[in-house]
């Protein structure tokens, strides 16, 4: 068991809580930097997907996990990012310019969808964002002169500054840099007044307001930042899948993103990454166990979604904090060994709130 003896307030503002934890993250970084030279190409591309989903996970976590605004239309922001990137890159504009443009455009769409969010909460907001997602999907299919309609667009290779990136390994590093950057930015926000205002809105709007938080400004900001990050993920996504069409940005994708952060663990940044690892590796896992299943089950069409759904229900019932909650428990078990008690994380029943003003 480690006890951190704090002597300065700066210690609460550090990124890593102590040296050992910084050491672990450094080791992880070294592993990720070395990985593309060691692992087969197929797994490298799976890692790239994890990074891209991770960026998107950070974005959605900021909005849903920290500001408490649910969004079922995040595929639309991914689409705005992906299409902007594809169209600009086809014109020969490099990534260092096209990605910021894509981020800004997605953020603007985020502000637009954020406007109804000022009035709506909970399930109503979910429906509004869902409708928004379908609208964007429809626009992509109909605006043929720009998006190529249902026949889609082929994505050119990434041009970073001057030349095209030659190999997939460079692209792997680009995605790794983006996910680290996204995580850094979101983490910084969360240890500053803006992030705390988001958390305040999530937990109690009425008292957030009486502490001086301007609800509409911060909700809009949260939507914009979240959409911007998802737009960044979209630019990378386009290059990774090399061909984009409206079918890649359906409601199913938005729901997959939501499941990612719920299973990963709402309200934690680790959760976004755990969730993206889960979402990317589950199909692999199912593919792996297919051979051992009875044939009638293995060849069912909805196998993946069924397993997804069951896992989701199990998490909501038994581990509402998701994979991150599990991770904390395992970590505590080892750091306190052999003193861990079963009831240590027993959830206390909260007493009723009778007069919630919302």
């Amino acid at each position, binding site marked *: 068991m480690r006890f951190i003896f704090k002597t300065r307030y700066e210690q609460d*503002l550090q990124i890593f809580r102590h040296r050992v934890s910084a050491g672990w993250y450094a080791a992880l970084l070294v592993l990720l930097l070395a990985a593309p030279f060691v692992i087969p190409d197929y797994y490298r591309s799976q890692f790239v997907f994890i990074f891209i989903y991770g960026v998107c996970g950070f974005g959605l976590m900021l909005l849903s996990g920290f500001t408490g605004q649910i969004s079922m239309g995040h595929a639309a922001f991914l689409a705005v990012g992906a299409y902007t990137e594809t169209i600009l890159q086809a014109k020969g504009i490099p990534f260092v310019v096209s990605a910021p443009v894509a981020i800004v455009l997605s953020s603007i769409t985020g502000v637009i969808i954020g406007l109804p969010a000022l009035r709506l909460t909970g399930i109503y907001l979910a429906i509004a964002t869902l409708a928004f997602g379908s609208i964007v999907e429809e626009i992509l299919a109909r605006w043929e002169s720009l998006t190529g309609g249902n026949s889609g667009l082929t994505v050119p290779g990434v041009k970073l500054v001057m030349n095209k990136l030659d190999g997939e390994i460079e692209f792997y590093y680009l995605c790794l840099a983006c996910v680290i950057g996204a995580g850094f930015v979101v983490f910084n926000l969360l240890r500053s007044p803006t992030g705390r205002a988001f958390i305040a809105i999530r937990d109690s709007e009425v*008292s957030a307001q009486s502490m001086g938080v301007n609800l509409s400004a911060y909700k809009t900001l949260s939507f914009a930042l979240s959409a911007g990050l998802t737009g960044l993920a979209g630019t990378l996504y386009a290059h990774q899948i090399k061909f984009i069409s409206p079918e890649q940005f359906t409601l199913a994708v938005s729901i997959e993103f939501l499941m990612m952060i719920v299973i990963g663990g709402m309200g934690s940044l680790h959760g976004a990454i755990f969730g993206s690892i889960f979402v990317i590796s589950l199909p692999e896992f199912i593919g792996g166990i297919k051979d051992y299943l009875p044939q009638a089950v293995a060849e069912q069409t909805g196998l993946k979604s069924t397993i997804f759904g069951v896992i989701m229900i199990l998490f909501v019932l038994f581990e509402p904090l998701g994979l991150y909650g599990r991770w904390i428990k395992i970590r505590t078990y080892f750091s306190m060994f052999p003193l861990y008690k079963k009831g240590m994380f027993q959830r206390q029943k909260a007493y009723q709130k009778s007069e919630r003003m919302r």
Partner: protein
Amino acid sequence: MTLLKVENLTKKFGGLTAVEDVSFEVKPGEVYTLIGPNGAGKTTIFNMISVIYPPTSGRVIFNDHELHHVSPDRVVSYGVGRTFQNIELFEHATVLQNLLIGRHAHAKTNWFAEMLFLPSVKKRELEHREQVEKVIDFLDLQAVRESLVAGLPYGVRKVVELARALCTQPKLLLLDEPSSGLNVEETDDMAFWIQDIKNELGITVLMVEHDMTLVSRVSDRVLALNYGRKLAEGTPAEVQAHPEVIAAYLGQ
């Protein structure tokens, strides 16, 4: 000399008149208490002072500003801090984070600088932290600084909410039933703290309270309400002896 002036305040919810033509004045440095049976309109008056509801008619003047024209999130920067009857803390955040949110009105936010956590952001964070630590010392909250609010007992949450209101550096503190749900000792502590807030910090307190022992111990003046109307005003003893107040509580 008045700090808060409430003039002919009326609030109607549809056909129901919750508050009718209530006027009173709070002087700087006093503890002013609103009492009355359930549904008398005390909390509604609170919510109009902190602009959660707009008044149907009447005015709220604080320090020469007309508060009812201010937007709800700006009220705190005029110097009005408040607590809620049913605790409204940020449950899934630590006590420290809750108190830091109390500093929000004094935080100059710039999300772009915060994304990169520039040195200026860090410097301001440390300043806020020092202010928060003063409040933590004042209310003896050191032991729970790092705990999640969701895991704290009710009595402690009540104190944390008081602390969060103090972190906003108010001139006027609105306490909505500070002793509700507290046991006798915790109520005693609350009384000491209210007196300390008045005497040591020089903050004016306007509170709603049912516990008459606490009321008579800390209040300088009391206003009794019933059915949204003013019944009596004066020192705790005067109001308690007032025939209409006795009638409102005990019947004729």
